[in-house]
């Protein structure tokens, strides 16, 4: 399969406008998407309501998935507990900002501290466990995820137990810039968080791209491809893996900060359980391991399926009165898990490189078998 785009020329030899636009979109999908998303809230009034909040959450999951992609995609380490780091970020951020604790830091300070601390926790988990073989590492991360969830639930004096920590103040609470009370603006209009999450996401995407081609990023891929050969070339595999672990944790922590701030609560610990980890992992795999556009698409598909398509299909079924007895067999969301599972199985069977594969992985997976 070639990705070549053949432009057709009309009689005068000029490339038609439609093709030129298509070529531009193909080439600079990121800019196009950014512009569309940046303009959307000004054009679509629904984004000022509940939908805005949903899209913000989508952006936050994109950040989380990009963080996971560092470990699973670039470095090839299976991580089944990314939600734990998401949760650690959210809870640390909440502890640093909520009124019941004495810290009450500013948004940026609190975010920076919790991102660094989350990275530190990632290092602390990674340092002793990174010499484990792939499957065992997966289990350690899974176990760690469960430990974190149980701990968050049980340390009620610190984490508020099932109630979570709230209220997490919005960014810039009490700050007035140009006659706008920032805290109030964030609290009232979801579009502020929309833009904050979008800008952060764009920043993370840019950073990931630079990282991908940096010395460190290439070292990650080298270790994934062949650890032995990489060490023979003078790469310290342990250090490279540790840095991937720390980077993943840090980005997940960043996503956690935004999550807690945008919901103004940490929500209950079950928001950071194994299911969340698996969902994000599925998004990365579905979209394409190690591929930034793939990861973003994967999250959009999975989260979009859950928050947009499933409720829509359910209400449609209700409207057309297909299911008068209310049987769960005939409701769309009743099939959610099966559709999810089937998608994973089919993708692994027929397109293991994902929907938008990274070029390297696609080439590798479609090597002619001897």
């Amino acid at each position: 399969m070639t990705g070549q785009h053949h432009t057709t020329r009309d009689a005068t030899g000029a490339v038609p406008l439609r093709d030129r636009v298509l070529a531009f979109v193909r080439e600079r999908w990121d800019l196009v998407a950014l512009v569309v998303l940046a303009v959307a809230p000004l054009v679509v009034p629904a984004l000022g309501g509940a939908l805005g909040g949903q899209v913000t959450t989508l952006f936050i999951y994109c950040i989380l998935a990009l963080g996971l992609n560092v470990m699973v995609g670039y470095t090839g380490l299976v991580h089944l507990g990314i939600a734990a780091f998401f949760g650690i970020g959210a809870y640390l951020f909440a502890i640093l900002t909520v009124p019941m604790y004495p810290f009450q830091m500013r948004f940026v300070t609190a975010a920076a501290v919790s991102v660094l601390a989350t990275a530190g926790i990632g290092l602390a988990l990674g340092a002793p466990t990174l010499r484990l073989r792939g499957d065992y590492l997966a289990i350690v991360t899974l176990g760690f995820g469960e430990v974190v969830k149980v701990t968050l639930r049980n340390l009620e004096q610190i984490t508020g137990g099932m109630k979570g920590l709230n209220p997490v103040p919005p960014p810039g609470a009490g700050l007035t810039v140009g006659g706008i009370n920032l805290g109030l603006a964030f609290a009232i209009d979801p579009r502020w968080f929309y833009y904050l999450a979008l800008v952060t996401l764009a920043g993370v995407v840019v950073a990931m791209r630079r990282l991908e081609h940096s010395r460190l990023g290439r070292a990650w891929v080298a270790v994934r491809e062949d650890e032995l050969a990489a060490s023979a070339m003078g790469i310290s595999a342990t250090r490279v893996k540790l840095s991937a672990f720390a980077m993943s944790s840090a980005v997940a922590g960043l996503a956690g900060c935004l999550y807690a701030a945008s919901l103004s609560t940490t929500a209950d610990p079950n928001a950071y359980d194994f299911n969340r980890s698996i969902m994000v992992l599925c998004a990365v795999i579905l979209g394409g391991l190690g591929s930034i556009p793939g990861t973003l698409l994967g999250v959009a598909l999975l989260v979009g399926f859950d928050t947009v398509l499933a409720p829509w299909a359910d209400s449609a079924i209700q409207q057309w009165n297909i299911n008068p007895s209310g049987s769960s067999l005939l409701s769309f969301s009743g099939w959610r898990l099966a559709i999810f599972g089937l998608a994973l199985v089919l993708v692994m069977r027929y397109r293991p490189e994902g929907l938008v594969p990274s070029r390297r992985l696609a080439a590798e997976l479609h090597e002619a078998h001897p």
Partner: protein
Amino acid sequence: MQFFLQQCLIGITNGALVALVALGYTMVYGIIRLINFAHGDLIMLGACLALSLVSAFGMAGGGMAATWLGVALLVVLCGLFCGGLNVVVDRIVYRPLRNAPKLAPLVSAIGVSFIFMNVGLFWLGPSDRSFPELLPATNLLAGEGLQFTAKDLLVLVVVVPLMLALSLLVKSTRLGKAMRAVSQDPAAAALVGIDVDRVIAFTFFVGGFLGGAASVIYGLYINTIGFQMGFQNGLYAFTAAVLGGIGSIPGAVVGGLVIGLVRSLSSAYVGERWTGAIVFAILIVILVFRPEGLLGRGTKEKV
């Protein structure tokens, strides 16, 4: 002291159950290096079938002998069901991925687990269901002291013979020999004329059969089943398999017993709600200091 002994007894019966599930993980891992994430949910489906059979045949009102006979029948039926289902899944999902990168079957297994969970959701409904108490909770031991009920007896009566049969199967039959050969080196096994795919299918069947038996015992012993029971129980069992040394059959049994004891003792002395954290913390510590598990052989990563 008495309290401690009682907790140990509970731990051992619980642990025997965990071990039965752990065997399913360890056998499949031993032979194709796959963490079969769907195993816990397979057992959930077995429990669904057991519940349906019990309700359909009105087993709750039988006499003592009839009840035990019925339970034996249930174990066989659910075992065959889970074993067969496991073989089918292997044939459709995992076999085409034999030469794929390692991540592919793992992710597929997660997918299969989701599909199973959805089936269980339709079968049982979204809330937990109670499993009828077929066996009386009267104490079988004389005196006021330790409690050892018919339920505890059931666990041992089913688990011990199954494990003996399994070790006989693996150690002394042709098929068992073939299983060991494939687990050591599939390519070499194929070279000496072993039908590798059939041996793998058989392994899936045996693992599934043990899981099916475990599902019946689970229903009768715990008395509550739900479509999400597979994940948590699967995780404990998998921990047991890793703890004992994944791929090692005696290891799974030892690991299961240890996990059972840890669970009951930590529930009794630290508090039920910390049990999960303690079990997984132990898992992490074991993996860090002795990654090959208690009874596993150290494996060198092949170049």
